[in-house]
């Protein structure tokens, strides 16, 4: 077989986010990923939400997957001309106005500390804060659901106080329990499945957040506001 370059490769060169242009790349022949330039912030995500609404309405789209300041568009079949798809996505991004989704507010009772908070001591060391301070900083913030993914119903939450950012582990915990309240880099979330997990656990939530039998299986939706309410603090 003769290997030839894809003729739309020039549009896919690696452009550092800071240069201000959105980037479109592909996975196989049907899926295209648009990545927003700039900061990982609510402003960029609001435009991704707007873009999602536009792209969802395209007749040749099978499925869209909004991510963290990016959007994966999956087409029902390999589009005739990938260059046209790239151009359409970039144009839709340019035209995407910032929208705010009128989400609901979800309160999640958390048992901070205790047996599930296996990474709290390491976070204290990293942040140079007491466990009590960390818990207070975590539950006083208000979070927005940016996107869902990775596990059924798992919401990526934005709004973590930079003082308690903590990088993901290089060696994941092998069996972190479903319900663990975790920090991964500048994000926080609640583990939806028991299993390997690279995020750092600081507490535990009982709340059932995914039900495959429900017409709306996931409790969280992009745009929702989340508050963590200390049900118990065990330090």
């Amino acid at each position, binding site marked *: 077989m003769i*290997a030839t370059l*894809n003729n739309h490769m020039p549009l896919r060169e690696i452009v550092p986010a800071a240069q201000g242009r959105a980037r479109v*790349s592909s*996975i196989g022949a049907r899926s295209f990923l648009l990545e927003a330039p700039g900061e990982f912030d609510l402003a960029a995500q609001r435009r991704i939400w707007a873009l999602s609404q536009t792209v969802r309405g395209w007749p040749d789209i099978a499925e869209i*997957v*909004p991510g963290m300041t990016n*959007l994966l568009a999956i087409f029902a079949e*390999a589009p005739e001309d990938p260059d046209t798809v790239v151009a359409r996505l970039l144009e839709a991004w340019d035209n995407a106005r910032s929208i705010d989704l009128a989400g609901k507010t979800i309160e999640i009772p958390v048992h901070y500390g205790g047996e599930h908070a296996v990474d709290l001591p390491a976070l204290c060391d990293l942040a140079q804060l007491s466990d009590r301070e960390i818990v207070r900083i975590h539950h006083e913030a208000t979070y927005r659901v940016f996107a869902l993914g*990775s596990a059924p119903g*798992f919401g990526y939450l934005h709004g973590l106080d930079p003082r308690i950012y903590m990088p993901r582990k290089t060696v994941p915990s092998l069996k972190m329990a479903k319900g663990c309240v975790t920090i991964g880099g500048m994000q926080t979330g609640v583990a939806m499945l028991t299993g390997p997990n690279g995020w750092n656990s600081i507490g535990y939530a009982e709340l059932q957040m995914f039900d495959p039998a429900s017409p709306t299986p996931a409790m969280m939706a992009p745009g929702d506001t989340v508050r963590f309410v200390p049900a118990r603090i065990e330090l």
Partner: protein
Amino acid sequence: MIEILETGPFNTVQDLGRPGYRDIGVSASGAMDPFAVRIGNILVGNDEVAAGIEVQTFPFSLRFDRRTVFAVTGADGDPMLDALKLLPWCAYTAEAGQVLELKHPPTLARAYVSVGGGLDVPSVMGSRSTSLRGSFGGNAGRPLVKGDRLALGNSADFAPVPANGLAVIEPAVALRDVFPDFVDGTLPVRALPGGEHALFPDDGDAFWSQTWKISSRSDRTGYRLSGEPIKPTTSIEMRSHGIVPGVIQVPPGGEPIVQMSDANTAGGYPKIAGVIECDLWRLGQARIGSRIRFVRSTHAEARAIEQAVARYVEDVRTTSEMIKRALKAMA
């Protein structure tokens, strides 16, 4: 009803999957060789999306408790019905009490049992596929075990098949020009460069030119490949983004992972390439320990293959409907 008499640990109920829920973190799942499921369903007179059994650990056997049209597709190897050797890719009628047995196939990985009417397990979020990770769908969200009994759907119209079977020329043979054969025991898998391809030196040469082995730490979620590790020239921090089966990610260790049917919905590792959708079924038939090589494809080629597959499926459908109509008229 069918009863599972013998099974390995990882055989599940699968259909064409549960797409449409990746945006809430739900993997699409579905057969690793969806092509085999589509053809099997057409042969037994079902909708393409009907559920069957994916057998990836052998031997496997089941008993029919009523007269049932069935077909075994996917893997090579001859299914046995009450010790009578049958052909794969061929629909037969089993009588009540007969036992279907699948032995370890000679070269391929996964066999599919399609039954007239499909498996009547509850549809969860639009699919009967088993979500192993989410523990829902299929047969109570878990692999089949000995003694499981599965209800069959009503085929409104018992589709007759000829007494000595109704066979198709299997895709690998009928589409030999479209799907190149193994080269020295290595499966060629076509892929397109991915979003971070340019981060790998020499135009990704180390990735494209070496032969990779499918490691034993591979399953329906993904294949981990062993070989000479490949490293990007700079390491970048990616934000979590949607991914699909076929994406070839390069984790820090440098040995690529190809996401398969139970693909995670989100990822963040650099993507060196993406397997074209129409080659995924071949990868789904590649066994642990076997060797693959990635062949750089083009979008135009991927589209041409997609169209050839669609033509073949349509041809099988029209022909099998024609034969069944004729049989009915003669009956």
